[in-house]
């Protein structure tokens, strides 16, 4: 089956269409897919759930209807079909790839975005707790304004899952970009976990008054500035999603974000406190991937320009 679905110079995909292609790639090809066929034929499967089996039955019977000689695409034909075939055809017709690397990445990005939102709400809630903090925080983060300006511009975009109407193949460059964004998402998740545990730990100490002055200072910093982290990360996640979409126009603002982040980073490098170190790490994470995305854009931009000239 691998060779039948090998994407290069293969007219099969034009013939069977995107829905069948996506379903077959999910069943047979994508590494992160279920690979049920492989495991079954190598004798490694103990049991298969009804849902898993149903999915394959629906795809198979849906294909039968796609290629039914009586199928004239008219309402009357579909109404006359036995219900099992009606359901199968509708399922296949609306099939969205589950294991295309882009979809997997997208799901991960949306998850990260949701987690950020949840954590943000949690931190906001904790601000209602009456805690007496007797420390002065003398930090001057001028870059805050810049981040807020950026995020105001960005949060107008909606986070939407992209339809799975992708070609089944990918270029090497696309693939590299996915790998980079995937790795950065993992870093963002790790960073969030670290921050959550730090915040919880400090919150407990401050609440039961066992916190030292140093703890209280850190807590106040986090309390006051975590929203910056959320904004920055949301900017990044949001732009990554836009970048994965095939809408090249969005990249103009991506460049702006990248350069802004770089300037923020330069300013922060002068501050050597716990807080600034933490934020430098955060911004480095974001700017690193923006850098890659920027490169990606530059390459494509050059290609587009050249094509225009031709």
């Amino acid at each position, binding site marked *: 089956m691998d060779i039948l679905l*090998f994407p290069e110079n293969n007219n099969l995909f034009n013939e069977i269409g995107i829905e069948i292609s996506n379903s077959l790639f999910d069943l047979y090809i994508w590494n992160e897919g279920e690979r049920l066929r492989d495991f079954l034929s*190598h004798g490694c*499967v103990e049991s298969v759930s009804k849902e898993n089996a149903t999915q394959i039955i629906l795809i198979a019977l849906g294909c*039968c209807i796609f290629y039914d*000689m009586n199928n004239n695409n008219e309402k009357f034909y579909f109404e006359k079909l036995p219900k099992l075939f009606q359901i*199968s055809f509708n399922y296949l017709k609306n099939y969205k790839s589950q294991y295309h*690397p882009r979809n997997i990445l997208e799901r991960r990005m949306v998850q990260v975005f949701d987690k950020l939102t949840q954590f943000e709400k949690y931190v906001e809630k904790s601000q209602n707790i009456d805690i007496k903090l007797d420390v002065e925080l003398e930090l001057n983060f001028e870059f805050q304004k810049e981040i807020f300006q950026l995020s105001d511009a960005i949060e107008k975009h909606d986070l939407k899952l992209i339809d799975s109407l992708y070609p089944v193949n*990918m270029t090497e460059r696309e693939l590299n970009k996915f790998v980079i964004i995937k790795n950065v998402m993992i870093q963002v998740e790790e960073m969030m976990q670290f921050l959550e545990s730090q915040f919880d730990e400090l919150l407990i100490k401050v609440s039961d008054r066992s916190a030292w002055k140093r703890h209280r200072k850190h807590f106040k910093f986090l309390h006051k500035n975590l929203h910056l982290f959320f904004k920055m990360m949301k900017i990044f996640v949001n732009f990554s999603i836009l970048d994965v979409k095939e809408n090249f126009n969005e990249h103009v603002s991506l460049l702006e974000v990248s350069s802004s982040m770089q300037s923020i980073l330069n300013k922060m490098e002068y501050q050597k406190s716990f807080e600034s170190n933490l934020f430098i790490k955060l911004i480095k994470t974001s700017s690193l991937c923006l850098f890659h995305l920027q490169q990606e854009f530059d390459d494509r931009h050059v290609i587009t320009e050249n094509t225009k000239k031709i």
Partner: protein
Amino acid sequence: MSVREEEANIWKKRGDKESNNLLKHFCYGKYNQIIQNDSKFLNLPSTFPSSLSDKVQNLVLFEELKNDTIESLLNENFTLNLQTFKKINLIINANTEDEEFLNASTFIQIYSIQIEKKFNKMSLEDFKTIPKENFTLISKEDMSHIFELHKTKRSLLSFSMASSLLENALGDLLNLHKVEVPTKLSEILSLKKLKELLGEDLIFLLKLMIGPLNGLNLRNICLHGFITPKEFPSSYAIFLIVLILTVSSSFSVIEHRPLKNYHIKNLLIPSIESIDENELLKVLQTSLFVIPGREECWVNCIKDFFNGKYKDSLLMLFPLIEHSIRRIYVIVNECTDRLLTAGNQTILNILREGCSLHHDGYFVVSRK
């Protein structure tokens, strides 16, 4: 007018001779329905051709019988008498590339028919009385199910299941001896360690049946959907069952690696209800996706599904889908010769030729 007929008209308008040929090939299996509308298809053969090449067909469907007595082929405990197999030159000292190897594989069917006769009298209950020592490789429960499938005239499924479970069991055996398990059965059978464990004679018989391309290569022919249930000689299923019982008898208990359980993972699947067999058949018969002669197989898959036998259902359904896709593939890519199984000197068309895998396992393709 159906979608396919509309497409046919478009091609005809183009006046592209090649495209017309493609369409003919595509409709090959369904010419009966097509000729009602288009007399041009009358020149197609009156029966749907086999997807097995002549060479493979001769190998698999050899029907000549000899008068060997069944008693000398089998031991009392329903294992193969390897001495007899040596005498009748089914086990010989030959490499898989030798002509003798190919010759030996042509004789398997003759003897497997003899063995099948003996098992014809055996009921499922009788089969379950076979000593437990013969079920160390594959459990008695699974082997009984495989035997039951054979008894109910579903030998292709019986063979497919037996060969896949055997592959996994041989992997378990190698794993016990800390040998890295290759992904392909033919590679597993070529391992020195397995030769040490099973002995040359059994390895030779396994290779003849399911191993390299030069033998019957039944595992690939079945699991990649080339052969139809009607083409598949039922005796091969019983021969493999006896072969597994024979291999099992050489070992005491084997520790098996854990198997995979497939359970729902974020699947939004509509629920479906059973369908009348006639209604099902009616649609299958008019679908170009269903290759003529395989309708019954499709029906059995759906029946198995609604009877809760999901593994049975899918083990047959995957090859059916694969061969239907293969048929479309060869037509749209103008390589109808690849519809057939390859001859034994060329590689079966399941290879990843030209396919490079990226470090993350995804295809790397330059778009044109």
